[in-house]
């Protein structure tokens, strides 16, 4: 029972990160109808920037802040310099370009920092506090929950309540009509990419200290897990992405706790296939999958 409690908390903590990363995927999917396969690589790049700043200044928090800014800028840059110029008539094209970005970013990181794991520090202790003899959650878990809670509710508030959120939604749903109503659709798209990339960078900063460390490929498996989370929730649904992230985090935690951590990649694949074959629109989709 203790172990179950521990694994549940651990899974929720991991799931919160997947939720944020999946949310970033959903943001771009809704705005541009592109699944950003380069998001993992972009987030790792931001994390490397944070690593450099933290190493130079000795301040974790300065690095953390710089990572978020770097994430925002990288997202805007990718949209303006690359994605804006891709022919979107075939859905293959943006995916292929995103994969080109993956190769490019990971290779550049490898050239600059080398292809070895670098230790990434956590700002708070990762050893769990015990409540009544049961190891429950660590200060770091609390930090993860708080940060992601703030970001997710902040995004939700922005989209639902602010004029810029309204513009972004309108631009995503009906770009042509939105332009006629004076919305700068291109700008909203860039803003969407920037926000998504910033959230991705945040997720990378939170998840990397809990894994092997900083590496150009550090987010590969996280990306697959987050993609699965986004699919579980239905690619179009931000709340779905959050729930999906928690589901995937819990599943992975239980699998690695009860069956061995080697099996977690396989578990992700099985879950992804199962969801796509049984409910391709995600668990919360009101409509069934696209029929051709």
């Amino acid at each position, binding site marked *: 029972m203790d172990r179950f409690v521990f694994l549940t908390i651990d899974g929720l903590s991991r799931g919160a990160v997947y939720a944020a990363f999946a949310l970033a995927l959903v943001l771009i999917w809704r705005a541009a109808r592109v699944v950003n396969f380069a998001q993992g690589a972009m987030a790792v790049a931001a994390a490397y920037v944070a690593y450099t700043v933290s190493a130079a200044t000795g301040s974790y928090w300065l690095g953390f802040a710089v990572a978020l800014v770097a994430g925002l800028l990288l997202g805007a840059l990718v949209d303006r310099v690359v994605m804006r110029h891709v022919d979107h008539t075939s859905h293959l094209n943006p995916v292929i370009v995103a994969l080109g970005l993956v190769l490019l970013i990971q290779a550049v990181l490898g050239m600059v920092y080398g292809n070895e794991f670098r230790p990434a520090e956590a700002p708070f202790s990762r050893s769990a506090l015990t409540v009544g003899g049961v190891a429950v959650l660590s200060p770091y878990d609390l930090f993860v929950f708080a940060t992601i809670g703030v970001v997710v509710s902040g995004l939700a508030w922005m989209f639902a309540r602010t*004029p810029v959120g309204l513009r972004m939604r309108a631009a995503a749903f009906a770009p042509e009509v939105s332009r*006629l109503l004076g919305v700068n*659709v291109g700008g909203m798209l860039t803003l969407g990419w920037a926000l998504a990339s910033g959230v991705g960078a945040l997720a990378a900063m939170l998840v990397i200290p809990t894994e092997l460390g900083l590496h150009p490929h550090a987010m590969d498996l996280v990306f697959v897990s987050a993609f699965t989370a986004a699919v579980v929730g239905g690619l179009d649904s931000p709340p779905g992405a959050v729930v999906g992230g928690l589901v995937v985090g819990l599943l992975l935690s239980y699998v690695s706790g009860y069956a061995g951590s080697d099996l977690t990649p396989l578990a992700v694949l099985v879950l992804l296939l199962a969801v796509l074959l049984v409910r391709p629109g995600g668990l919360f989709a009101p409509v069934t999958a696209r029929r051709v």
Partner: protein
Amino acid sequence: MSADSTADLLVVRGLVAGYGAAPVLQAIDLTVPAGTIAAVVGANGAGKTTLLRALSGMIRPAAGQVLLAGEDLRGTPVEQLVRRGMAHVPEGRGVISELTVDENLRLGGLWRRDRADAGRALDEVYELFEPLARRRRHLGHQLSGGERQMLALGRALVGRPRLLLLDEPSLGLAPRVVARTMALLRQLRDRTGLTVLLVEQNVRSALAVADQGVVMSLGRVVIAAPAEKLRDDVDLRHAYLGF
């Protein structure tokens, strides 16, 4: 028509536009005086919708000039046109079905610097279209055809435009609703001095409210005349409108 050119809100000269190689519009000339309603009529494929799309910059004209109150609109991005005072209600009305009625309406005034007046304009639209006020929180796709029409019109009016471009407002609506819409246009013209360029298949109801009738065929303006003349002159009607 007024001879005074400053009273002409919209002047189109030699407009050529289309999709790809062959132009759809071939040297369109058109003048709409301020505070009048012009109805562009013609068969399917005459280029009526293309004309509106070229006016609002959704397609780039290959040649010609579009002047709004004397200002050349060439090179003005689509999203800037509302700021120049032009509102375009596109074909199919363009209600964003994933947004609520209120959000759709507010979107129409988001670009305005004068937030207080934008708020007043919103209230006026709710007064003008009573049914919309009752359905503020409903999503666009939950509305009936007539309500969508009101929403699209209202959303354009929130921006307090000088020129309103309307693409097929009668499409798919009951005759009663069409009549109400047309009467409303006339009322707006009289009360606020709104200028309207309206594209219609429904020739009778369009000419009934319009000051000027413009008949298009195969990408050209074949005749532009006072609406009552087109409406009442049997020979003209036979020649250009086929009834």
